């Protein structure tokens, strides 16, 4: 997996959170819409925006997908484990599993 793809598996649920650091612009929208507060901005000195989203609490994710739906940048995905290999994600058109 590319170092720009962050993967977090919930211990409680069949949920995987994927973040593409390349695409995330640190706009804060996903953090704002996440009720269980699973996400937070972290410093990203390698990006001009200076921050990207990261997962701070994958286990409480409710699979509501609001972060994914409201993300303007295609930077975050909420998938079931079995979907991970089927859905394309990342820098190029590769599935997350391939990266």
């Amino acid at each position: 997996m590319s170092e720009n793809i962050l993967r977090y598996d919930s211990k409680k649920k069949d949920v995987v959170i994927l973040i593409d650091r390349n695409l995330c612009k640190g706009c804060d929208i996903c953090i704002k819409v996440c009720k269980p507060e699973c996400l937070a901005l972290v410093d990203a000195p390698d990006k001009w925006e200076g921050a990207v989203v990261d997962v701070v609490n994958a286990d409480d994710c409710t699979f509501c997908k609001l972060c994914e739906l409201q993300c303007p940048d295609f930077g975050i995905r909420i998938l079931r484990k079995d979907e991970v290999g089927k859905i394309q994600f990342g820098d190029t058109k590769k599935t997350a599993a391939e990266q």
Partner: protein
Amino acid sequence: MPKAAVDYLYYLRAEKLPHMWCPGCGIGIVVKSMIGAIDSLGWDKNDIAVISGIGCTSRAPGYMDMNTLHTTHGRALSFATGVKMAAPDKHIIVISGDGDATAIGGNHFIHACRRNIDITLIINNNNIYGMTGGQFSPTTPYGARAATTPHGNIDPAFDLVELAKGAGATYVARGAVDNARMMEKYFKDGMEHHGFSVIEILSNCHTQYGRRNKMADAITMIDWISDQVVSNKKAAKMSPEELEGKIITGEMYHNTELAEYTDEYAKLIERVQAKAALKA
């Protein structure tokens, strides 16, 4: 049973990402919802043309892995009309900004509505000309600041829903970027509708509009939109006083009775050819 995950990148030219829009820009959310709608309709991306004019919003087709056409300022609907007339069985989506669709493209807009041609028009209404540097548009609210209204806007604004309805569009809806799920539903219904459909999306340009009106980041501006919008179901139970300053969202008009333009033209061809065959 949750809906199967949408493979967004399948519909995108992923190699073009990240896109050009500012962090938190509503256009990205609109594009995502468009893809969600297309995916749920099961349309083949080879059968879809996405057409746009000029402006920030009009850069959207470049990212979509379909037949895409980035045209001139305001005139996307005219190109789209040509594409649709030449390929009536294909799906044509036009994505436009407020300035593009209703100022320089205002005439094309009302006439596309009048023809009731089967094209879906999505207007990302962020109340401003973003790309050219934040000038006021026909939807900029009264009193708002823009690069060309440094002393406050005195231009009355268009109500795009009323405009579309009055001009003859047969599916009209209004959504907002704070609710991507609803937006996707309106897009899907509009795309599925056989006739001219207009979906206005209240959107955020915090960079050009927000910055000049004390809402310099995406969250503040999206919250400002959320505070104003009321769904039409809720609005029905509210008094005029309560509705003061509110913007109603929802499906605003849906008429499946009126004839669609390319259908009418196909009938015309049939009629003319039958007559010619009789003569021969």
